[in-house]
């Protein structure tokens, strides 16, 4: 792999999902925008879900999502691949199948043509791996590069998995380990080991397709992908949406060891603090050590799926997931609504 002349990650201030506008800020910004609706809109942005869902017929609904961000990797091909993987993930999180994608791109005037091509090639490869196609896109000039996609998919409207449908006693599963945001931050400061770098890139380029293909066979009641709002931010949305309390066990949550060590040293992206501000009031941290709590607030880029499954199906789904996803863990359970929406034990 040729060394890029200009390190892409040095061109941006904030990487990947760390660049996302914080949930609290976003809510305020969108607060008084008048929303029109349509009886066929099954899921819209008023529900803070991963994608919107529009019913076309009794058996078919359209799923739409959009994601883009500044460089998260110096290698342009990997950057493109990660951005596309991240965008596709929201379709999977709704239980859907991606089919069509449009590129969204911002390029500096002096970016070499080869680099632009490589970013796009990475994006295309992720889309093809998902069994979808790229049908167009739009690019503008910008000092800071950005890349991502608008993805359209399909789902049976009777089987849409929102992030709000969890039921009491549902078991919570997670399909990728946490700590990706911290590792990308360390990488920007040249403080990441080679092994850590490989793990991070592998996780970010793993589609959530296998996870989705497994989960749709079981009685899954809710699902979301863990990305910019971190595990605690996305879990808070799930718990609020279902009016329940999520009890999670920190020792059962798979955290990349290097991420925990880096968290202890304070190598944390700004997103950790934004996510903390959004979710903290609703979280009972128990005795969780600060470094592990930081990982729970760490914004993930292209993270795994967080699934709320009927307890009777939990073991079977977990076993099937273990065969095909990076890390399938049972992280907790949904309980009746208590004083806080999330309790960490």
């Amino acid at each position, binding site marked *: 792999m040729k060394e890029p002349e200009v390190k892409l990650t040095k061109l941006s201030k904030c990487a990947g999902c760390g660049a996302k506008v914080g949930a609290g800020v976003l809510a305020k910004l969108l607060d008084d925008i008048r929303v029109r609706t349509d009886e066929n809109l099954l899921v819209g942005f008023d529900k803070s879900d991963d994608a919107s869902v529009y019913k076309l017929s009794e058996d078919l609904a359209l799923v739409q999502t959009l994601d883009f961000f500044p460089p998260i990797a110096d290698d342009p091909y990997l950057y493109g691949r990660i951005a596309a993987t991240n965008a596709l993930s929201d379709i999977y999180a709704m239980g859907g199948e991606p089919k069509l994608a449009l590129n969204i791109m911002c390029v500096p005037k002096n970016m070499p043509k080869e680099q632009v091509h490589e970013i796009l090639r990475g994006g295309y490869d992720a889309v093809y791996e998902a069994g979808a196609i790229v049908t167009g896109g739009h690019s503008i000039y910008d000092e800071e590069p950005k890349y991502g996609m608008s993805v359209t998919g399909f789902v049976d409207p009777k089987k849409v998995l929102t992030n709000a449908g969890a039921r009491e006693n549902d078991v919570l599963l997670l399909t990728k380990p946490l700590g990706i945001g911290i590792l990308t931050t360390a990488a920007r*400061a040249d*403080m990441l080991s080679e092994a850590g770098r490989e793990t991070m890139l592998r996780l970010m380029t793993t589609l959530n397709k296998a996870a989705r293909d497994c989960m749709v066979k079981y009685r899954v009641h809710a699902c979301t992908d863990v990305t910019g709002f971190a595990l605690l931010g996305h879990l808070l949305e799930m718990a609020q949406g279902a009016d329940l309390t999520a009890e999670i066990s920190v020792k059962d949550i798979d955290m990349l060891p290097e991420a925990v060590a880096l968290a202890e*040293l*304070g*190598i944390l992206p*700004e997103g950790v*603090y934004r996510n903390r501000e959004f979710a903290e009031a609703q979280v009972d941290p128990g005795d969780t050590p600060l470094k592990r709590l930081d990982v729970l607030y760490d914004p993930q880029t292209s993270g795994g799926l967080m699934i709320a499954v009927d307890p009777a199906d939990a073991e079977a789904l977990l076993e099937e997931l273990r065969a095909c996803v990076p890390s399938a863990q049972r992280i907790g359970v949904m309980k009746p609504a208590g004083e806080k929406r999330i309790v960490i034990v």
Partner: protein
Amino acid sequence: MQEIDVRGLACPEPVVRTMKALLKDPSGVCVLGDTAASKENIARFAAAKKYKLETEEKGGEFVLTLTK
């Protein structure tokens, strides 16, 4: 005591520069910064490496003094 100015730098640059300064001279460092995130990051580093931490805040800026 060495002094560093990390105002305007994006995470994790402020804490990384603090680390590098203390590698050069482990007795201590005075850090001038301006974001809550960098202040928190440096505080975590100080706790991990058992440095004494003093914080002074003025306007939107802070001065963190780390000493052994």
